[in-house]
């Protein structure tokens, strides 16, 4: 285990992404990569540089092979492309009954975070738990 973990954050709300980044970086032991650019994401993941990913479900700025891709699809793609185990946390405002099970099953993600996420510690705990199950 390296001293700092690189957490990929794919989130189309700039302020939400900023909050994730600050929460993780201030807690210590994390550096964050905030991007919606799919080729950059794949490059980093395929090079095994990313230790964990937080993906928003509704992604508006992200396209893959000429069409929009959402967090569920992106999760499947990253799981397939990552040379090593990549824990994924799905963060979404889809918080209706049944969404959690449905989205986790469809995406293959490891855990699920309901928005609004405004407790920094809660977020950090979730990410740490995902990493420690390595």
């Amino acid at each position, binding site marked *: 285990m390296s001293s700092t973990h690189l957490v990929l954050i794919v989130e*189309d709300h700039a302020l939400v992404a900023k*909050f994730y980044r600050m929460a993780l970086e*201030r807690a210590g032991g994390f550096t964050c990569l905030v991007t919606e650019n799919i080729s950059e994401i794949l490059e980093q993941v395929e090079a095994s540089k990313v230790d964990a990913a937080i993906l928003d479900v*509704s992604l508006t*700025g992200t396209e893959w092979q000429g069409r929009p891709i959402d967090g569920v699809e992106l999760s499947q793609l990253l799981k397939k492309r990552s040379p090593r185990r990549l824990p994924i946390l799905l963060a979404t*405002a889809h918080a209706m009954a049944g969404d959690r099970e449905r989205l986790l099953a469809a995406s293959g993600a490891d855990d699920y975070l309901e928005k*609004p*996420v*405004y407790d920094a510690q809660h977020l950090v705990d979730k990410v740490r738990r995902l990493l420690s199950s390595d």
Partner: protein
Amino acid sequence: MESFVQEMKRYLGLNEEDAELLRQMGPRMDKYLPGMADRFYAQIPLHPNAARVLTGGPAQIERLKQTLREWARGLFSGVYDEAYAEQRYHVGYRHVRAGLDQKYVISAMGNVRTYLSECLLLEYPASDERLRCARSLSKILDLDLNLMCESYMHATLQNLRSLNAQLEFANRELDQASKTKDEFLAHTSHELRTPLNSILGFTKLILDGLCKDRDEEQELLRDVYASAQHLLGIVNDILDLGRIEAGKMSLHIESLNPRDVLDSTIPLVSVQATEKALNLVDDTRRQKLPLVRADEVRFRQILLNLLSNSVKFTPQGSVTLRSDLASHPGFLRIEVEDTGIGIPEEKREAVFQKFVQVNVAQVRRQGGSGLGLAITRKLVQLMGGEIGLDNGAGDRGTLVWFTLPLAAGSATDDVRAKPAETTASR
């Protein structure tokens, strides 16, 4: 299936012999029929609905009496077939439509029956013959009563069916309204949560002392402030829309110089436009603008909404403001044209509806409540204008225009929106 009239004839024992007897009675009874009609209609004014039913005066009564005489001639025709039944049904339907209750009509028919028995007594003094006639008459009157009750039942059933259909329709409308309300709530809750996420999250980071220095605290506080303003905007939009839909939006209509409103509004978006390196062009300066009749605050709100939409959805290029007095006589037309992402033709009506965007997620990313255009359209309509969308220049981008009535004088009056006007477009 055997018809109702055949079935009842058999049940009542009304046979060909009776029919023949009634046929023979016909000419002898004919002179009593006007008296019978009088007897029947003497009771109608006592009907609880009489005032509502008998609005046609003496002419109507005369027509009704004529109908009743024809009905009585039918009794003595001896032909009790489908056509006879249908005619009888028709009378029943008319009574139901007119609102004559069955029970009162039955009792009036009872009166007619008594009257006809009295007539028999005069016409057939020999008791043996009278008895035979009375038996046949009784059978045909029973058949008639059955037909009448059946027709009442059918007419009532039909009324119920149509009432049911109306109720079902109303129910579907309510269902739809409730669904729309649910979607509105779900969407609103989502829209409110996003800025709250930043407000609560960043405040907590600051309170927990996780900021590096005062500058960073300041930066986060600015984010909190911006998010809170965004939240306020959403809350205001929701309140505005609620007010408009409840017909409680008060407008202060006066004669305004559009130049003043344009000049005070454009600077509010020029910062955002500059940040995105967009060219914000004000072509309205090319002509002297006449006074318009409008509410100043709402005029500015409309303009600001359209301008900031254009700035928001234009990644590069320009946003141009134009005025036009020729295309809508009596109105000032103001256009906002951009070189942005555009709105596909099939979505142009939809974007004026609540929370309907070309791409909901995109609007979310761009901020905004998703209510702006819905509110803008209603405000334009409340001020007597129109609003519409067209292609922007070169088939890219969007051109949105609205009109405001030109001022004839300079009087000031207040208009309170009526619910009917504001909901007509929904």
